Structures are given as structure tokens and as C-alpha cells.
């Protein structure tokens, strides 16, 4: 009973870490862009990237199928050029989780960067420090708490991701069956012991992440 549970937990952690890592890199880049650069369509971009937070995960999963499925533009290109098929793989689960949780990192990063006084960055420039140096020595040290808090929330969200993942990655035990999907399958099959264990493991993990996130988050940074 415990071995499938551990397999599902390991898979969930793998998917969550990959998805959160991708979200962190993209979220910091886009969050900085939205906070510091004025361009037409800025708020429209922000709204578009926030959509995954309000859309039903199944709708999102359907959109992903349309894009990365064998007949979708990205899926067809990947298949024809590299022979890669994403659907029903753990990588598809990573993509689904990353898209669903992205707004959490983006919102956290954007508001964290917006609280950094732009004049401090100007002061650093006049002192001769390069643009990369300004970001690494002034902007990021003053914003990292907000960025990290958003990232931890995203991690918790990806651990619990169900709908979109099921649509694009399916439920293949040992391959794409993550914790939250395994819970569903166990309940469906009447395996209450397995379900109890899975639920306990998931709950403890999510509570731990949330506690850490709330300790890191400065009060002025609004996360959602």
C-alpha cells in the first residue's frame, strides 16, 4: 500500500519542483518587466497571464491539449521535428502545473518589484554599477521575500494540481499519476486506506509550505 503512495509522492514532488522552477525564472523576468517597463498592452498582458487562476482547470487543460496535442501547432512541430510526443507524459504534467501556478509567482514578483524604490536603482547606476549588477545587488535583495513567498504558494498549488494535469497527462500509475490524482483513483476504487495515507501526505506537505510562505511574506506584498 505504501509503495504506490511513495511513487505518487515522488512524482508529485518532481512535477512540482520542475513546474515551480520554470515559473520562478519566467515569473521573475515577466514580473520585473511589468513592474519596471512601460509599454502598450502592459495591463492586458498581466490580465492574460492571470487567467489560469480564474479559469476552470479542465478548460485550461483543454486549451493545452489544443496547443501541445499531436494536432496542435506546438505539438505537431515537436512531433515532426524531434519525434517528441508530450501528451500523457510527466513533462505534460509539468507544463499543466506550470501554467496553472504561474499567476501566483507573477503576482508576487510584480508587487515585490514595485515596492522597490526605482530611485535606489538610479543611485546604483550613477555609482557605476552595471544593469545586471543593479538587479542582483539592489532590486533582487529588496524584493526576494515577496518573490519567494509567491514561489512557495505556486509550489503548493502545483502539488495539488488535478484537472489540467489529468486532461493532458492522464493517470498512468508510476508515470503520470500524481498524488492528487492517486487520491481520486483510490477513492473511486474504494481503497480507503490508500486514500487516507495519500490525503495525509498531501495535507502535511501543503500546510508546511503555506506556513513557510506566510512567514516570509512581507505584509505589504499582496499575493493573490
Amino acid at each position: 500500500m505504501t509503495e504506490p503512495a511513495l511513487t505518487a509522492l515522488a512524482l508529485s514532488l518532481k512535477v512540482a519542483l520542475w513546474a515551480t522552477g520554470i515559473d520562478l525564472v519566467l515569473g521573475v523576468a515577466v514580473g520585473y518587466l511589468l513592474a519596471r517597463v512601460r509599454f502598450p498592452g502592459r495591463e492586458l498582458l498581466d490580465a492574460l497571464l492571470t487567467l489560469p487562476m480564474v479559469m476552470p482547470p479542465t478548460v485550461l487543460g483543454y486549451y493545452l491539449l489544443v496547443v501541445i496535442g499531436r494536432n496542435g501547432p506546438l505539438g505537431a512541430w515537436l512531433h515532426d521535428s524531434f519525434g517528441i510526443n508530450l501528451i500523457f507524459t510527466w513533462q505534460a504534467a509539468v507544463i499543466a502545473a506550470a501554467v496553472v501556478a504561474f499567476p501566483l509567482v507573477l503576482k508576487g514578483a510584480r508587487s515585490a518589484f514595485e515596492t522597490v524604490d526605482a530611485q535606489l536603482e538610479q543611485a546604483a547606476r550613477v555609482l557605476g554599477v552595471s544593469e545586471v549588477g543593479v538587479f542582483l545587488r539592489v532590486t533582487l535583495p529588496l524584493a526576494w521575500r515577496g518573490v519567494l513567498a509567491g514561489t512557495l504558494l505556486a509550489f503548493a498549488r502545483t502539488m495539488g494540481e488535478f484537472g489540467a494535469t489529468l486532461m493532458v497527462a492522464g493517470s498512468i500509475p508510476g508515470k503520470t499519476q500524481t498524488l492528487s490524482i492517486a487520491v481520486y483513483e483510490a477513492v473511486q476504487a474504494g481503497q480507503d486506506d490508500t486514500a487516507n495515507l495519500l490525503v495525509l501526505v498531501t495535507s502535511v506537505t501543503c500546510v508546511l509550505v503555506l506556513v513557510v510562505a506566510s512567514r516570509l511574506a512581507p505584509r505589504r506584498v499582496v499575493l493573490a
Partner: protein
Amino acid sequence: MTIAVDIAATLRSGARTFELRTRFTAAGQRVVIYGASGAGKSQMLKAIAGLMRPHAGRIELGGRVLFDADAGIDISPQRRRVGYLFQDYALFPHLNVRQNIGFGLQRGWRNPPRRGDDAAVGYWLEAFGLEAVAHQLPEQLSGGQRQRVALARALVAEPDALLLDEPFAALDPALRVRMRQELDALQRRLDIPMLLITHDPDDAATFGGQILTMADGAIVDERFTGSGTWTSQTNEW
């Protein structure tokens, strides 16, 4: 040291637009730009430092062309070699006094060490009596100490000129008088060109030198004076 500025810029804040048409040449070691808030002084100073880009014109500092719209020259703020004292000092809140002063001396992607032993930083810590607070954060300092840290940070890299944006506005009146005297003595000792902008006629009178009066984005009056003899000619603010 000669500062030659001839710039045009259109500034937008909300729905309001403001035309900056500033032209002056200053040759002395002490230059004061005096004018009411909203006259465009700060933006003009930012243009000299490379923090605001005019749409036309030319800026020259000590024979170096920093900006020339026609020739396509726009030296980055990193390479203009000017010191800049921000109105509220813009000290890095996450770095201690020593790290703030040594910030520009340390190149690359890392901040200076918390307990460094850089000789130039040590010199300024001693010169400004900041040794006792070297390991404190800016939020733990008094107003006068903050200004000294900001001055040391701007001066430690030996810039070609020091630009000061309302250096005394954030201080209470008693401290203001003392810091004016400190700046006066500092300029005499270092013999570094200083360009100071202020809305306070007392600042202009105390600091002396070449005093340019600015209104609505343009220089409207220019006079030279020894320290303490100038009085404001325009009283509409």
C-alpha cells in the same frame, strides 16, 4: 570645470505636460540652480547624470560630451563620472554604512562585504565621523548622518563633479545650518565642482558662486556672487 547644458525635453506626469528648455554654461566650482518646486530643476539635474533623456540638445562636462542628440551620443549614467546626492539620499536600506559608501568601488554582481577594510571607505568613515556607525543600517541613522553617508558614497569614487538635489530640504532647520557649513567646508577642501539645486534662497546665498534662477523649465536670471551676499531677486514664490 565647465558645465554646458542646452537641452529640450517634454515631461509628462499624468495628463499634464511640461516643457523643459534649459540652456546655461557654468564655469565655476560652485553653481547653484535656484527656483520654485516644479521649475524643472530636478529633471535638468537628472539629465546631466543620464537618468533622464532629453529629446534634443547637448550636455558637456569638463570638455567631455555626455549627451548630444544630433551626434547620437548618450553616455550611460554608469560612465558619466558624476556624483549624485539624491534629495532623500537614496541609501540602500539593506546595506550597512560601510557597504553603502563602498558600493560604487565594488564592481561585478556582488555587494561589498559587511566588514570590509577598504582604505578609501575607511578614509571617508573617519572624515565624516561615521566610524562608530559603520555597521549600522541607514534606518538606524540620524538625518545628518544619512546625508554624510550619501555624500561619502558619492565622493569616494572621485567623480568629475558632484550634483546635489535639494541637499538640505530633508533636514530640520538647526541641522540645515550646520550641514550647509559642512558642505561649504567640504567644497573648499576638495576643490570639486559642485552643482546644487534648491528652492531655498538661504541655500543659494550661503553656498554662493554662480547662481542661476530657473522658472518654467528655463534659466531666467544669472549672477555671480561671493558667499553670503546674494539675495533672491524674484519673490513670486
